[in-house]
C-alpha cells in the first residue's frame, strides 16, 4: 500500500515538474527568443503523455528507494542510474509524443531536466537537514543523561 501511495505521489511530482519544465521553456522562448506565446498550444495527448511519463519515471524512483540500507557510495551510483534512466524515459517520450521537434528544443529539454533533477535533490537534502536540526533541538530538551 505504501508503495502504491509513493507511486501516486511520485507520478504527481514528476508530472508537475515536467509541466514546470514546459513553462520554463515557454518563458525562455517568449522572453529571450521573442517567440509568439499565443501560438503555443498543448494538446490533450501532450498532457496525457506527461502524466504517463511521470507514472513510468516514478517506477524508477520506487526502485531507487527499495533498499536504502546501503553504503553512501552505492546509493550515489543508484542515483546516477536513476537520473540517466529517467532522462532516457523523458527523451523517449519527448521523441514519441513530439515534445521537441528541433535540436535546440531537445537541448533545452535536456538542460531543464538536469536542472530540475538537481533542484529536487537539493531541496530534498535541505528539507532533511532542516528536519534533523528541528529533531535534534527537540531531543536536547528531553534527553536522559547516562
Amino acid at each position, binding site marked *: 500500500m505504501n508503495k502504491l501511495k509513493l507511486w501516486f505521489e511520485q507520478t504527481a511530482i514528476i508530472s508537475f515538474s515536467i509541466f514546470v519544465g514546459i513553462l520554463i521553456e515557454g518563458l525562455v522562448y517568449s522572453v529571450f527568443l521573442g517567440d509568439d506565446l499565443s501560438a503555443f498550444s498543448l494538446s490533450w495527448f501532450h498532457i496525457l503523455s506527461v502524466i504517463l511519463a511521470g507514472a513510468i519515471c516514478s517506477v524508477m524512483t520506487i526502485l531507487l*528507494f527499495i533498499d536504502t540500507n546501503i553504503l553512501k557510495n552505492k546509493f550515489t551510483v543508484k542515483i546516477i542510474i536513476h537520473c540517466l534512466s529517467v532522462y532516457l524515459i523523458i527523451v523517449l517520450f519527448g521523441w514519441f509524443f513530439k515534445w521537441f521537434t528541433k535540436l535546440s528544443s531537445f537541448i533545452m529539454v535536456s538542460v531543464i531536466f538536469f536542472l530540475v533533477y538537481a533542484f529536487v535533490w537539493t531541496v530534498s537534502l535541505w528539507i532533511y*537537514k532542516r*528536519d534533523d536540526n528541528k*529533531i535534534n533541538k*527537540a*531531543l536536547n530538551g*528531553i534527553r536522559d543523561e*547516562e
Partner: protein
Amino acid sequence: MRVHIEKVDSKDQEEAVIKAVEITDEISGAVELLEGDAKGFAVSKDGKTYILKASNVYYIESVDKKTFVYTRQGCYDTKYRLYELEVLLGGYFVRCSKSMIVNLRKVRNVKSQISGRIDATLINDEVVVISRGYAKEVKRRLGIG
C-alpha cells in the same frame, strides 16, 4: 495544587502543563507517570524474570517473532509483542521502523542520509535507523510535527 482537566477530541491534542515554583519529587514522579517512564513490564534473561522500568529501555526490537529489549545493562526478551509495548509505553517510545521502537529520551542526535533514512545515535553510541516513513510520527511525539 489545583488540577484542571479539559476534554479534547483527539490523542494528538492531549498534553499536560504543570505550573510549579520548583520541580519537587512529586512533580518529577507525575512527569514520569505522564510520560510513561514510570511504567514497568516483565522481561526475562537467563531464565530469570525481572520487572524493567521503561526509563531504562533504549530500544525494543522484534526479530523472528521474538521481542528483545535493550538497556544499558544488556538485552532481555519479553513476551510482549512490539505493538503491545508501543501502546503500553507510549510517550517518548515511538516506532522507528517496522521492527523497532526507540526511546527518544535515549537518542543523542539524528542525521539524515542521502537515501532518506535517518541514523539515530543513542547515548551509548549505538546507532539505530529511523525509517523516513516513521519520521513524521517521531516529530509529532517531539511536539514539532
